[in-house]
């Protein structure tokens, strides 16, 4: 258990562990034995190891859902729902600004400078960024484009969607928590029967493998 000390600490602090944020730890967590060991360690803390469906991210869940835990989860759900639209709009904005044909995915490298430059040249992107940055989730107070972008990236890093490999370099890497976010969206769509284009083909292709 000793070798997993730092990992446990990060999990307990509420971090999501993925192959981008910590490749080693993620590899350890893919072993049943390690997961069992961590689970039994977490038992007295009323926590257990959980993952999304693809097991691309690991995090801690409540073991027993007592009233206190449910209270906390309700609050958290409220926060999640409130942050959903700004986060998804940011994903779209990045995709469009950088001229990509796919959403930012774990491992993608994002540079705030490049993002600023693209938004600067395009009035519509500029306006969308402005609206997004001043949203209460990102909470930028500035009118400067660079400061707004900086704030947006800072908040995304705080929330674990991005990581910054070198503190002094303005280069960010998308983490596996984005997968978790997309899973949440998919779950809400299915659960609430939202009229959103269903991805029926996905299952068909995967079943071929």
């Amino acid at each position, binding site marked *: 258990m000793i070798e997993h000390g730092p990992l446990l600490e990060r999990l*307990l*602090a509420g971090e999501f562990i993925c192959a981008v944020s910590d490749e080693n730890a993620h590899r350890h967590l893919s072993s049943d034995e390690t997961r069992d060991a961590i689970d039994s360690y977490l038992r007295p803390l009323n926590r257990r190891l959980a993952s999304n469906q693809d097991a691309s991210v690991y995090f801690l*869940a409540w073991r027993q*859902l007592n009233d206190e835990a449910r209270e906390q989860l309700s609050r958290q759900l409220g926060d999640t729902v409130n942050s959903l639209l700004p986060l998804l709009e940011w*994903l*779209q904005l990045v995709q469009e600004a950088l001229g990509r044909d796919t959403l930012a995915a774990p491992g993608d490298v994002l540079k705030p400078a490049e993002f600023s430059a693209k938004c600067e040249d395009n009035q519509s992107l500029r306006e969308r960024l402005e609206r997004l940055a001043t949203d209460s989730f990102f909470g930028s107070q500035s009118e400067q484009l660079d400061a707004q972008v900086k704030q947006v990236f800072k908040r995304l890093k705080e929330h674990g969607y991005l990581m910054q490999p070198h503190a002094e370099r303005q280069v960010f890497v998308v983490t596996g928590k984005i997968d978790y976010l997309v899973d949440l969206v998919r779950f*809400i769509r299915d659960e609430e029967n939202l009229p*959103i284009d269903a991805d029926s083909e*996905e299952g068909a292709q995967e079943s071929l*493998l």
Partner: protein
Amino acid sequence: MSGEHALESRLLKTGSERLALLGRHADVLMQGYTRDEVPLDNLSDSALRKLLAARLLWRPDEQSGVKLAPKVRELIAEMLSDETRRHVNADVAETLELIRSLVHSYREARSRGEHWRQAQQLLRLRQEVDDLNGRFADAIDSLWQRLNSDFGFVSQLNDKIRENDRAQKQIARLLDGLALIDFDELIELVGSDGSLRKLLISQLQQQLSHHYTSLREVQRRLIELMARFRKQQARSRLVSGMVAFMREHPGFVPGNYARRSEVPALFNQAAPLNAAAAPALDRALDSHVLSELLHQLPTPRHAAQIVAAASPAQLPENSLAAARQQALKQDVERFYLAVLDQPQAEPVSALDYLHESSLEWPDEIWLFQVIAEFQGLPRSEQRAFRLHQDESPASPFNDLRLIHDVALQLAIPL
């Protein structure tokens, strides 16, 4: 014999001449490759005639312009690994047909003892087998190129999905082609001829099984990549769909999943816990480490604080000790008042007062406090008293003076 040699040398000559045309008109041909038609501005009539005769160019009909022959286009695509235009030729059936007839001619020539023709047929057979082999190798190379670049030659995800689909169909055709080659039939065909057996059985079989493995591998990877493309496409659609929905329904709130009897796994995320720790000195081993850490602490950069300002940071005194200190101080003050009340202004011994008033302070503490009280008085009030110290040297050789008692006396009669 000599006629056949003449034929061969004429072939060689014409072939070289026509190949040279490719080099001489490379620019024009490349322009034709990138555009719909070959530009004729820089081409003389005789050059155009030669290019048409060599079937490097062709004219679909009288009205239309001159175009690159399909084979030339293919050759260029192949040379450039231009994956948008590279073709995969999986037509194995015709090659097999050709091989069969070549084998028959070869055997005929052998039975008639026509050695030169026999050698020619063997050469052509070898070339056909090499071609077949080369076609598979080329196709597989082209497939790997496309796969490894993630279909980077098209930018849109939808195009990538279409290209991937096309590549998968090519693989299916190539695999079908491989399945047409029946080695039992070939074994029967070559009979006991050693060189044919080597060429058509052992060598070909080895090469084809290698191609088969490669094709299966490419196919597996293509399907994987396709799944990834589809997944990306689904993600994009999901996110844009949700954004559109939430914009249209600003008040949308999903159900409170946390209140369900079965909380969905995704939403069960435990509250963060801070694994805090503080330095502890209850283990001798650690105290050494801690003291080292203490020494390593950077010295604070700010200037020393004024004592008055720093007073709140003083350690809170033990309340019991503070109470006793206060009691001692009050008793000493009463002693001073008693001296003031002395009508004769006689010196009063502090120890005598202590013993008489049955206070329980140790003598030494009492004397200290009496002296301290005197020192603590404002100078004007100090002048109202005189403090006599009854003292003696500690020993003849030591000038340390020991105070045995103090006597307080009013200096100015009131």
